[in-house]
C-alpha cells in the first residue's frame, strides 16, 4: 500500500485519480484530449476543498482496482455504482452517494414494440460487460431474454442501429447523454425498479486502508451537497431530471 492520505498531503500535495474516460457524461475525454465529465469535475471540486492538486490517469476499468490496491491511485471516479457486492469488497471503500441513477432501456426512436422496460421480454438486449444490467436482466426475465454483452457503450449503440439487438440496457444518465446527441435514439422512463439494484446511486472509490481519505472525501461531499454546488454540477453535466 502507498503512503497514507496524511503523508500524501504532507509530501506531494497531489491526489491521483483513475478514470476510464469512456462513460459520458460522467467521465469522458474532450477533443483536446483532456479528461472531463461530471465525476471528473466533482473530483476537482473535492480536491480543491481538500487543498490538493489533482492528477487524472486514464486507464482500463480492469486496471483501476489493482492500481488502487498498489497505491498507484488514491481514488477512482468512473461512474461506479454503489452495489452491495462492491460495498462488501475487502479492498476498497465507497464514498457516500454522489448522484442517483437507474437502469433502463435505450431503443431506436421509431421503436414501437418496446414501450416500457417490461416489453424487453423475448427480445435481444445489449449490455456492457461487467455492468450491473447483466444480472438485472437475468434476474427479471430469466431465460425469456437474449443478452449480448459488449465491451463498451459505443459498440452496443452501433449494433442497436445495425439491428442486431432490439434494445440496450443502460443507466439513465448515460442514455440521456446519447439521446441528446443522437435523434435516432430514445430512452425509456421509468426504468427498472428492483429493490437494492435500480434505482441506485453512484459513488467514488478509495482504498480500504485509507480511512482518513474516505472521511475527508465524505466531508467534502457533504459540504458540496449542502452548498448546492453538487446540484449545480449535476445540472451542468446531466440535466434537470
Amino acid at each position, binding site marked *: 500500500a*502507498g503512503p497514507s492520505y496524511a503523508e500524501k498531503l504532507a509530501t506531494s500535495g497531489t491526489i491521483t485519480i483513475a478514470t476510464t474516460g*469512456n462513460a459520458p457524461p460522467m467521465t469522458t475525454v474532450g477533443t483536446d484530449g483532456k479528461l472531463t465529465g461530471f465525476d471528473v469535475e466533482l473530483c476537482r471540486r473535492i480536491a480543491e476543498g481538500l487543498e490538493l492538486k489533482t492528477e487524472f*490517469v*486514464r486507464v482500463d476499468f480492469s486496471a483501476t482496482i489493482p492500481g488502487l490496491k498498489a*497505491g*498507484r491511485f488514491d481514488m477512482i471516479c468512473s461512474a461506479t455504482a454503489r452495489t452491495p457486492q462492491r460495498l462488501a469488497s475487502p479492498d476498497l471503500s465507497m464514498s457516500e452517494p454522489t448522484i442517483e441513477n437507474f437502469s433502463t432501456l435505450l431503443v431506436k426512436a421509431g421503436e414501437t414494440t418496446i414501450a416500457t422496460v417490461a416489453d424487453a421480454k423475448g427480445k435481444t438486449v445489449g449490455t456492457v460487460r461487467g455492468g450491473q444490467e447483466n444480472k438485472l436482466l437475468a434476474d427479471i426475465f430469466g431465460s425469456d431474454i437474449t443478452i449480448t454483452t459488449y465491451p463498451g457503450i459505443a459498440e452496443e449503440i452501433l449494433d442497436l442501429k445495425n439491428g442486431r439487438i432490439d434494445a440496450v440496457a443502460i443507466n439513465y444518465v448515460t442514455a440521456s447523454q446519447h439521446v441528446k446527441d443522437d435523434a435516432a435514439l430514445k430512452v425509456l422512463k421509468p426504468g427498472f425498479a428492483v429493490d437494492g439494484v435500480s434505482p441506485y446511486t453512484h459513488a467514488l472509490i478509495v482504498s480500504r486502508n485509507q480511512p482518513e481519505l474516505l472521511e475527508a472525501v465524505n466531508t467534502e461531499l457533504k459540504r458540496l451537497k449542502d452548498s448546492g454546488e453538487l446540484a449545480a454540477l449535476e445540472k451542468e453535466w446531466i440535466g434537470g431530471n
Partner: protein
Amino acid sequence: MSAFMTAVADGFPVFGQALLNAFILLATSCVLSTFLGALLCVVDICAHRSVGLLVRIYSWLAQTTPPLILLFLAFYGSTMMGRAISPMTAAIIAFVFFATAYYFEIFRASYEGVPRGQFEAARALGIPPLPFATGVVVPQVIRIAAGPFVGRTTVLFKETSLASAISVSEIMSTASAYIYSGASPLLMVAIAGGIYAVINIALIALEKHLTRKAAAA
C-alpha cells in the same frame, strides 16, 4: 463530414501525442529487446545445455503469457515492491519482457541458417571466436533475420495498443476516446487502423528495399 474535419483538426495534436507514445514504446522496447534477444542467443549458443533450457523456458513463458498480465505485473508489481515507476516505463519493461523472447527465437533460427561449413573453415584457420562472430557470422545472421525481424516488429507495433490498459495513451485508446466523446466509431477505428497499416507497410517496404540492396551489393 465537416464536423469530422474539425474533429480531425482538433484531434491532430492528441493523435500526434498518441503516435509519439506508441513510437517511443515501440522504439525503446524494440532496441532493448533486440539487444537482450541477441544476448540470450549468444548465451544459448555458448553456455551449457542447462542454461539453454532455462532460456527456452523463459522464452515459452514470455510468449504464452498474455501481454496484459505482464503490463499489470510491471505496473503494479513495481509499486508493491516499493518503487513506483511511470506507466511508460512499466509498459517498456513488459514489452521488453516478451519481445526479447520473440527476437531471441528469430536470431536463434537465423544463426542455425548460417552454413556450417564456414564454422569448420574458421576453426581450421585458427580464427578466434570474436572476430569470426563479428566479421562473418553476425553479418550473415542479420541478412537472414531481417525479414522475420521486421515481421515481428510490426506485431509489436500493433501490440502497443495494449499499453492503454495502464494509462499510456496510444493510437487505439485515443480513437476510443474520440468515440466516447461522440465521433463516429467506424470512422475512428478506420483511422486508427489506417495509421497502423501505413506505418507497418512502410516498415515492411523498407526491409524489402534494404534486403534487395544488400543482395545487389
